[in-house]
């Protein structure tokens, strides 16, 4: 009689053991593993945001975001000082640089550095405010007839991926 009860208890304990092991394995493998890609992307994303933040300095500097945007012409080729500073911050990762701005309620886009990103690429952006009065009439952002204090808001988007 006692032996029978012992065996029943053993059976129940064995079943519980199997359920707990299965539950623990599923909890740890299925939920945690997909997050790892986000953690590795986060480092690259922070690098891109930090680079844009560092470059968003005084507009009189040729290699600042404002300095680069002010010197842009219709060819949309950024000056070499800016490219050198950006690459110093971003390399060895590869990058693509785009800008977006509003023109008469329409969002316009231009690609400044045209590299093709991989599917794992991440994007970081920074909004820069220029003034119409600081722009050259040949600038693609210049609004003829607008006042000198009229703002020109440009979003600089940096797409980065591991080379």
């Amino acid at each position: 009689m006692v032996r029978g009860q012992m065996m029943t208890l053993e059976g129940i304990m064995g079943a519980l053991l199997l359920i707990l092991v299965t539950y623990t394995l599923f909890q740890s493998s299925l939920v945690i593993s997909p997050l790892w890609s986000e953690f590795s992307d986060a480092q690259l994303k922070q690098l891109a945001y930090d680079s844009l933040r560092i470059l968003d300095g005084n507009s009189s500097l040729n290699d600042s975001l404002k300095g680069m945007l002010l010197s842009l012409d219709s060819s949309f080729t950024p000056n070499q000082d800016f490219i050198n500073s950006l690459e110093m911050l971003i390399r060895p990762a590869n990058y693509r640089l785009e800008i977006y701005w509003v023109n008469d309620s329409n969002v316009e886009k231009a690609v400044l550095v045209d590299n093709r990103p991989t599917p794992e690429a991440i994007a970081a952006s920074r909004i820069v405010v220029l003034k119409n009065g600081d722009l050259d009439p040949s600038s693609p952002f210049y609004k003829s007839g607008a006042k000198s204090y009229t703002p020109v808001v440009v979003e600089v988007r940096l797409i980065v991926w591991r080379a």
Partner: protein
Amino acid sequence: MESMNERGQVIILFALLVSGIIISLSVIHAQNLLAGMESSRTIMVFPKEEIRNLRDIAETEFVNEMGLRKYEFDEFTYNVSRDIRLLYAQKGSYAEIAVFASYPSDITNTVSYFNVRITYIGGGIEYNDTTLCRLEGCI
């Protein structure tokens, strides 16, 4: 012989009990690990850089334009806010820097301070923040 068998069964039963306790603890540990991962992920996806960018615009660009006349300052801040809304809308999120400027000074016709309300909605996060700005800086 029979009592020895029963003693063996009791030992096995206790071994199972102990292993049950260990497994329960490992489940609790896995849950804690998950909670930690989830909370760090929440911090990671929080759009802190976007909000910092909006604050920088209010604290530098808007403060630098406080020399403009009241209606010019209102026009400047309104246009910046409208363009930011449009630029964020094409990315599927919402951002706004609403400015409430003080009455203009009688002599210079400029604003002496202004309130900024920064709003960001995107990625399941809604953020609101209000700042008071003077020429000396923002608090």
